[in-house]
């Protein structure tokens, strides 16, 4: 018994002294954490780390999760070529920690973002190429990150996927789009009750909008996607999401009980009418703008605002014809990911 104990203690000591080995592989599956200001945020890296090219998904919300983007399509067609990085932001997804609400502030989200990149370079080498892909709220956080200090030097390119970089402009476009679509759908006799409700609400709004109105437009925009016939598959089915969560060992119940983005202080701040358009002129990295034609949540004309303001030598804009807000998982997913892969291949 004594010998067994000694053996156990010795093996524990040996393993605790070992330097962490990080191998670059064609089919890596790594999970590690960044702990910062009271939050432990999971970073899952899947795919071809040997390519030394990493595409970071900056998820939506605030309060969503990153692994939801890891569809079968991504596993087969993207991870085989490059490494995908799924980082859950603080108080989101499968992040852990004690109460840290005092850090629910864009400045700390940017700090976390910077530190995730530092950790990636520490693990996989300072010579790796990183691309940042912001979706929805992530499309606010990503340009905010790029506009700070020398952060642009850390990445090779920016992909803006139906991003919410300017809330007042977003609301303006959303109302316009909702009103136009409501008229068409009411005339066609499709979902007239809901579309009339949306139309009446939009017509009653005067700009600038209040926080509550901004949230309500966001809710109506999400609802509009589900009753828009032009979107064959607006959002991934619940069973697909369930499969992704179980396969990636996420705490399932917690996902139904997450940090509530609707009441969160960061969402409150955002819906007060924040924007990062003003600083866009500082952005010079290659940029790919991908939006869905039927996205009421983050309407496609938002891309024009970015295109006109940034100073990048390369800007490509593409509006996907059959997509809403979930463009990377809907009917146009092949087109979406081909655009991303072409962009990454070109600038890696």
């Amino acid at each position: 018994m004594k010998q067994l104990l000694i053996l156990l203690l010795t093996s524990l000591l040996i393993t605790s002294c070992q330097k962490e080995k990080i191998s670059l592989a064609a089919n890596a599956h790594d999970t590690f954490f960044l702990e910062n200001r009271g939050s432990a945020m999971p970073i899952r890296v899947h795919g071809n780390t040997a390519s030394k090219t990493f595409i970071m998904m900056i998820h939506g919300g605030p309060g969503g999760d990153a692994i939801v983007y890891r569809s079968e399509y991504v596993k087969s067609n993207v991870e085989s070529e490059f490494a995908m990085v799924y980082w859950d932001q603080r108080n989101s997804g499968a992040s852990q920690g004690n109460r840290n609400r005092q850090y629910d502030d864009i400045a700390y989200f940017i700090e976390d973002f910077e530190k995730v990149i530092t950790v990636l370079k520490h693990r996989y080498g300072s010579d790796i190429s990183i691309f940042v892909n912001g979706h929805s709220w992530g499309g606010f956080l990503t340009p905010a990150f790029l506009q700070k200090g020398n952060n642009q030097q850390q990445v090779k390119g920016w992909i803006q996927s139906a991003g919410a970089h300017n809330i007042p402009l977003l609301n303006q476009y959303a109302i316009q789009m909702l009103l136009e679509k409501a008229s068409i759908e009411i005339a066609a006799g499709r979902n007239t009750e809901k579309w009339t409700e949306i139309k009446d609400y939009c017509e009653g709004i005067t700009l600038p909008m209040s926080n509550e109105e901004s949230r309500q437009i966001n809710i109506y925009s999400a609802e509009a996607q589900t009753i828009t016939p032009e979107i064959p598959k607006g959002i991934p089915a619940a069973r697909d999401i369930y499969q992704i969560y179980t396969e990636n060992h996420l705490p399932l119940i917690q996902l139904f009980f997450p940090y509530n983005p609707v009441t969160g202080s960061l969402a409150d701040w955002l819906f007060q009418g924040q924007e990062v358009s003003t600083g866009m002129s500082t952005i010079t990295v290659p940029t790919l703008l991908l939006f869905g034609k039927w996205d009421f949540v983050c309407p496609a004309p938002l891309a024009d605002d970015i295109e006109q303001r940034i100073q990048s030598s390369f800007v490509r804009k593409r509006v996907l014809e059959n997509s809403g807000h979930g463009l990377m998982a809907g009917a146009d997913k092949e087109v979406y990911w081909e655009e991303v892969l072409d962009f990454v291949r070109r600038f890696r």
Partner: protein
Amino acid sequence: MQRMILLFLWTGAGLISQAQTDKVSIPLPVSSLKLGYLGAGIHPGVKTGIEIPYKVIQVEKRKRGGPKVHLKQRGISGSLGYYHHQDFHDNVFLLVEQVRRRENTRGWFSEFAPGIGYSRTFLGGTTYQVSAQSEVTRKKMAGFHYALISLSAGGGYNLGIKKDIPLRIYGRIGLMTFFPYNSSIYLRIIPELGVSYSPTKFLKSNPSFKIRKK
């Protein structure tokens, strides 16, 4: 897995058969050692502890075919538990529960146990910290301390009634909440299958005893 389902069905049958009782009285509960398997296949874990009864009420209901008897038992249970959730965390927790059990003369019982405790998680992967100077360090034993509240319910069979074996087999479903967790709470459902053994020479308990006739 099949065996686990059978055991669940078996313990579930205990809840259904509560109404059927014999005329004989039931032996008083004694202190016991408990060992449970947590997780039902995913996120496995173990839980071990002791349970000490402190109150027993023998309830006798007058029926046409004779009195029906069951025991209402109250006990305090202290446990140490652990589960492993891949890529998320390992969790070690201490739990004190008040066990409320109702047992019939055939040995079937149902139970409900509210509890409070303490939890320490260990993150399920290498954890990094980055200083203001961008220096990266690995944090050892990274994880968090939480308070926990637990509610569990289930049932089982007491082999001591008919076969004189000092063993109970039980199945439970527990709901644990850990807090303060991020900006809210963390909820977790924990299935548990276990046995409770009462050695002859073990912690002496002296539960109060009452008979209530209805």
